[in-house]
């Protein structure tokens, strides 16, 4: 029982200790502390998950038990889903720390301190049962992210960091406004208590507005369209180990938080459920497709990977928005699989930067022939993103597809399209950079590429976390993992069970639901499509002119419009965000 606060307390304490001794500690010791703390947190969270699978744990801080249905203190409600996501987050951090070995030599220990605080906040975010506590950990995650992005900023990168910071700050204000509205209505800050208090109301404008604000804030963090513009800028700017964390886990955890809020508070409210099943599902699909298209247009490898993250976040949102245990279980599996794969890809991008001091795909053409293992891993990552029927990400996709089919038959195909486009972009990059395929840069538009000065580190060492991550993703034993995910999803989506667990009463036992999943046909189609698109982009100069012209005619206006939308101007981003909020408002009226 007393393990419950440790996933938060241990990283925070480690950060404080590091700050006290930073002037006297050699870098290797600081790196080691980071890795060990993250691994310890992974272990503790895994133990908590194991216990939670038998019986979810409720831990009241300060010893303040609730009195007659009124929660006085803050609780951690550790159900299997929360504990597993916390465990996975700590694992990604361990990988990021390992990848960052000997990288941050002139910041003393500050980078590691901030990353440890980030880790503590993230595990707290996953485990908490109180909405303002969720907000505090959300803020802590955000501020550590801002601070960590600010490491070694070059001149051209500060706007990226500013865009990131301003957009996420507005997101946290939206979240706080939503919390204020819920508090005004219910006088409570505990998820279960709020859920009970609003369950009786049939749904009124206040709850709709609170829902829009809460989800608006969290979807900004999750980088769902049209709130997504900041992610690519932040990734282009942040150091590679930080990108691993951003794409690998931070955006997915924001979706997890949003899902938690829905299931504990808004589930019995009919208008909100309608909006989730319609607006959020369509937003997810749109994000998947448009993210994939934008991904295909990028030259900067980290921005390319960032847009692919946005696309896959769309898939995850679609899975959640089906509001079924199958879709939710698919979300958990996809979260893990995508996190591992995307983390590995960002590490590979970091290896490219370290070895060749450049991150532009066109400028790197053929340069990385000396890194064959990295090339193979990169291509493998691309295939997994496209939908290769192997591993965690695929299990998740199949569950999501099957539950999305229930709403509209064409959704799985659109989701597959988005993933295929991202896979195509990664495969194209792999072909161009590691093999030297593709047209001579003389034929491409001569636009200046970004020079990235990065510390040189031995590629062999850096490949270790890459290979570990890819192996973990691909070797997920389908049956076993799916059963665990389905059980976690069943507890996660049980609104009444959560309330009785926290505030007293009989805890119902929940049978593990079974969920079907779609067959591998879509997966192979998606992989094939990815290979074809990548091949076309690489072999453009060898295809007949008419084919090239038709492709351009079809695709060019669309892609150009997408490109123009991403201006980099903070005012535009804020305007798009307002448009997103407007979509929520309209969805409620429709």
């Amino acid at each position: 029982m007393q393990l419950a606060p440790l996933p938060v307390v241990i990283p925070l304490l480690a950060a404080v200790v590091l700050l006290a001794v930073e002037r006297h500690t050699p870098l290797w010791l600081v790196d080691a502390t980071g890795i060990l703390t993250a691994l310890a947190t992974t272990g503790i969270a895994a133990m908590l998950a194991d216990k939670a699978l038998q019986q979810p744990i409720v831990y009241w801080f300060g010893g303040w038990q609730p009195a007659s249905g009124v929660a006085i203190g803050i609780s951690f409600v550790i159900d299997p889903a929360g504990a597993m996501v916390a465990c996975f987050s700590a694992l990604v951090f361990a990988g990021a720390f390992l990848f960052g070995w000997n990288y941050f030599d002139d910041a003393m220990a500050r980078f590691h301190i901030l990353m440890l605080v980030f880790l503590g906040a993230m595990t707290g975010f996953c485990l908490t049962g109180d909405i303002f506590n969720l907000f505090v950990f959300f803020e802590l995650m955000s501020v550590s992210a801002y601070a960590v992005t600010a490491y070694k900023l070059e001149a051209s990168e500060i706007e990226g960091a500013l865009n990131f910071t301003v957009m996420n700050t507005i997101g946290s204000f939206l979240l706080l406004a939503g919390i204020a509205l819920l508090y005004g209505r219910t006088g409570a800050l505990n998820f279960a208590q709020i859920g009970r208090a609003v369950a009786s109301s049939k749904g009124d404008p206040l709850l709709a507005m609170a829902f829009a604000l809460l989800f608006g804030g969290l979807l900004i963090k999750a980088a769902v369209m049209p709130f997504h513009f900041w992610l690519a800028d932040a990734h282009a700017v942040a150091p590679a180990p930080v990108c691993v964390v951003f794409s690998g886990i931070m955006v997915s955890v924001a979706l997890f938080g949003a899902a938690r809020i829905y299931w504990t508070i808004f589930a019995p409210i009919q208008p909100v459920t309608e909006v989730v099943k319609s607006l959020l599902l369509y937003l997810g699909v749109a994000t998947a497709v448009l993210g994939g298209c934008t991904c295909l247009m990028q030259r900067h490898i980290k921005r390319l990977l960032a847009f692919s993250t946005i696309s896959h976040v769309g898939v995850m949102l679609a899975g959640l928005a089906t509001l079924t245990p199958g879709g939710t279980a698919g979300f958990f599996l996809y979260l893990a699989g995508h996190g591992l794969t995307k983390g590995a890809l960002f590490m590979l991008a970091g290896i490219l930067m370290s070895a060749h001091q450049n991150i532009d795909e066109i400028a790197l053409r053929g340069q990385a022939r000396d890194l064959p293992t990295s090339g193979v891993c990169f291509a493998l990552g691309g295939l997994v993103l496209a939908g290769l029927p192997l591993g965690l990400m695929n299990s998740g996709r199949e569950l999501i597809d099957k539950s999305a089919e229930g709403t509209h038959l064409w959704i799985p195909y659109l989701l597959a399209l988005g993933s295929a486009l991202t896979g195509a972009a990664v495969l194209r990059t792999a072909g161009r950079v590691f093999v030297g395929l593709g047209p001579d840069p003389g034929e491409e538009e001569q636009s200046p590429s970004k020079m990235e000065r990065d510390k040189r580190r031995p590629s062999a060492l850096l490949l270790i976390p890459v290979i570990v991550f890819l192996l973990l993703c691909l070797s997920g034993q389908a049956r076993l993992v799916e059963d665990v995910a389905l059980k976690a999803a069943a507890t996660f989506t049980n609104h009444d069970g959560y309330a009785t667990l926290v505030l007293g009463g009989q805890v119902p036992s929940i049978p593990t639901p079974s969920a079907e999943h779609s067959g591998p046909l879509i997966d192979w189609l998606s992989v094939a499509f990815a290979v074809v698109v990548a091949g076309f982009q690489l072999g453009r100069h060898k295809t007949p002119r008419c084919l090239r012209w038709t492709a351009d005619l079809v695709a060019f206006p669309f892609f150009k419009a997408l490109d123009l939308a991403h201006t980099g101007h903070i005012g535009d981003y804020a305007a798009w965000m307002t448009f997103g909020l407007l979509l929520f408002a309209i969805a409620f009226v429709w």
Partner: protein
Amino acid sequence: MNHPNRSIAFIIMAVVLAPFVVAGLWTLPPFGSYPGPYGDVINAIGTSARHITNMVTGVNYDFRGLDTLGEEFILFASVTGVVMLLRGARGEAKSAAALRIEHRRREGRSEAVAGAGRVLAPITLLYGIYVVLHAQTTPGGGFQGGVIVFAAILLAYLGEGYSAWRRMARSAVLDLVEAAGAAIYAVGGLVPMFFGARYLENILPLGQPKTITSGGLIAVVNLGVGLAVAAGFSSIALELLEETRTAGDDQA
């Protein structure tokens, strides 16, 4: 989008959103009639349960102590970020002593300002410490008092001038004090766990209400917050003031 288009687009969207916002706010309980149970429960049990008379402090450091731990670490992370951004850009090696600006016109320090700073700084410091210590009894606490102490430190800068102030406010010391403040809170919450209680559970003797030793653990973590806030903001001020200078030799 260029500027006028963006402005018009936003105004249109805001106008369309306005009725929704009004509809949402309309159904809140009328202003002045707070119905909910949380605040009333805390007001009812605070004094008897923890011997404190300032309920806001009770909420901050006891009932919802974990939130405040998180907020304190947000402060910690922001200060670390500012320091990393500004000091990192200038170079760590130059941070030990005051830098000198080269071609900037030196404004003379007015004697009135210097005198006022010298007189007010210790008074404000005393007041800040008073506010921190009396968290459980009267309005105040670590956050508010910490900011007042920071104001006192800035008044000392006004009174003494930059180089002298720089010798007093060493970045190493400020870092240490801030770490100590955060550590007091985190460890102070951990200690009850060794005695079988929950994290941040109050197991110290609760003392008499209306004294500064009431509240048990609240007094301890409140002190931690006060230290962290004062040191953190002073670090920020130090970095921002250093920004007005460029590298040179160390002269008064």
